[in-house]
């Protein structure tokens, strides 16, 4: 048993976990707050990648500025989506799932019609293209950037939800919408803002994934099921998603070390289904009743 390469797998697992977590962050906020199953999340990620591409290509924006800019662009798209469609469907969770799938079709085909099906590439600073030695392991520098951005975003979200007035309001609406409304919290506004926030996070993820992989209209579809499972296993809370992504990321990496990538993914899917059979509320269940 080669301990060195197992260590490699563990370090790679942290990187995989950070990728899954950043894909799931926005979804966690949206599902955790409003209970909306947003099937268009993958396409919001795709939009984030395309908006970075456009900002770079037409405005010559440096890559690091593209991250916050993509956040803003996709958050605005999310805001429009919430106001135009989602807010009418909060009482019909199954229908939000279907309607957002329709949205994902529209976004994917719309982008395909505008930009074509050929891949686009995001340019990153030289320094991110090198590899970094972590002990005996060589890791691409950009994966460390992804990890850092993920950590920063989780910290920022934790501060937002647990240290600000807005965060208290969000958690109040999460626990009991009617009671929160009775205390003067505008729950419709909270839903709107959290949806925009979640969409914006997808935008940041997209700007990062556009570098990890190529930018394609279909790139979002591969993230959405994975991101959902992280959210559902975590139970819809921020801590839950962090732990769920961490554990499954490591498991993916270790199983892939013993078998291969696809088989590892299969094992994880089956384990998740088995886990949810016994704990449908996820790792950290939300306190209070929703619906």
């Amino acid at each position, binding site marked *: 048993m080669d301990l060195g390469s197992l260590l490699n797998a563990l370090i790679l697992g942290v990187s995989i976990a950070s990728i899954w977590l950043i894909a799931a962050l926005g979804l966690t906020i949206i599902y955790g707050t409003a209970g909306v*199953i947003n099937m268009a999340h993958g396409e919001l990620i795709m939009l984030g990648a395309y908006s970075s591409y456009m900002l770079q290509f037409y405005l010559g924006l440096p890559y690091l500025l593209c991250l916050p800019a993509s956040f803003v662009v996709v958050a605005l798209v999310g805001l429009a989506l919430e106001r135009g*469609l989602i807010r*009418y*469907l909060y009482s*019909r*969770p*199954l*229908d939000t*799932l*279907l*309607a957002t*799938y*329709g*949205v*994902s*079709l*529209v976004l*994917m*085909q*719309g982008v*395909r*019609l505008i930009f074509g099906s050929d891949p686009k590439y995001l340019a990153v600073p030289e320094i991110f293209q090198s590899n970094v030695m972590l002990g005996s392991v060589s890791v691409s520098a950009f994966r460390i950037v992804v990890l850092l951005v993920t950590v920063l975003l989780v910290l920022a979200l934790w501060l937002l939800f647990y240290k600000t007035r807005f965060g208290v309001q969000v958690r109040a609406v999460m626990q009991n919408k009617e009671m929160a409304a009775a205390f003067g919290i505008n729950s419709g506004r909270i839903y709107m803002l959290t949806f925009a926030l979640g969409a914006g996070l997808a935008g940041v993820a997209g700007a990062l994934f556009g570098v990890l992989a190529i930018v394609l209209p279909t790139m979002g*579809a591969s993230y959405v*099921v994975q991101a*959902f*499972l992280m959210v*559902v296993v975590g139970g819809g809370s921020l801590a839950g998603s962090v732990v769920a992504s961490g554990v499954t990321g490591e498991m993916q990496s270790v199983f892939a070390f013993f078998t*291969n990538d*696809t*088989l590892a*993914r*299969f094992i994880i*899917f*089956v384990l*998740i*289904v088995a886990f*949810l*059979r*016994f704990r*449908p509320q996820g790792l950290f269940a939300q306190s209070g009743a929703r619906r």
Partner: protein
Amino acid sequence: MGNLYHNKIAQWVVYVAFFAALAIIPNMVGDSFLLNQFATYCVYGMLALSISLCWGFGGILNLGQGIAFGLGAYGMAMTMQMQSQTESNPIPPFMLNNSLDYLPLLWQPFQSTLLGLILAVTVPTLFCAAFGGIMFRARVSGPFFAIMTLAMLSAFYTIILDRQAYTGGVNGLTPPSAFQFAGVEVDPYSPTAYWVVLFFLTGATFLAKLITQSSFGLVTQAIRDDSERVRFLGYSVAGYETVIYTISGLIAAVAGCCWVMLVQYVSPAQMDVGFSLSIVIWAAIGGRHSLLGSILGALIIQGAQSYLGDTFLATWLLILGGFFIVVVRFLPNGLASLLEVALGLLARPDPTSSPAPDGGRPLPAE
């Protein structure tokens, strides 16, 4: 006179007329390629029917219908593949290409056509019974069950992709010759193949119709509307849900077999998330509370898609997605509910009945 839409006799008349119309298609269409196309639409109709049964009548949104369809299709493709293998050449070529020089245990039952067919239908059905049974007993329902089916579908997709030597991997299986049954070759472009598919579609539809009109169907509709109340009335909600989910899986498995018989091809694309979701779209646009509406939804959408061709595919999917959003937002019960409303306007209000009978959406049989 009440709303004709809810009249059982009128419903049966429409169903019989619809299938009679489908039955005369081979006499009207001389082009064998077109006939093959119509037959594949009928397979899609069967899939939409199966979703309508478990989602529209059982309240179980199943985003993983591709599991039953795909497993059935793979079973059929394996049977057909083994039919073209001979004594001297017992191993399918793709296995040899993957350096597998013996027939795996998984494939051995498919040497017998009858056993292969039985397995192609029973394996997915039993899977649905087991998966549904386990999930529904844990009271997993609603959007949560939908996500679980998605996860399961992705699991099957990845394992089939991964086990290339056993499943043909991403290329899938392409049986070289047409399906043979009892010494007769079923040419996929012949009217015979169309009749076979139509037979199964008709059988499945009438079975589903009888189920929805039975007392069993009434209970499943009650579970759809309020499962807690039904549970408090003493019914085994998990049992009813498992049965309706399994029947739906059975129909999808048969559809999978028919599909491979028609196209002589199966690949992991049939277990793609997008395909399973498009089945749901057919049923949702056609009207999930109406079996016939769902079938028509599949026929019309798939018909239009292939009529417009690949050049307009992106535009078509854009329009379809937009239309789907509009239907979900404004017409949750699909286009069939428009007919329901129209016929309701025609119906003379019965002076003896209590006012405002539509207050809480009475439980329709259809």
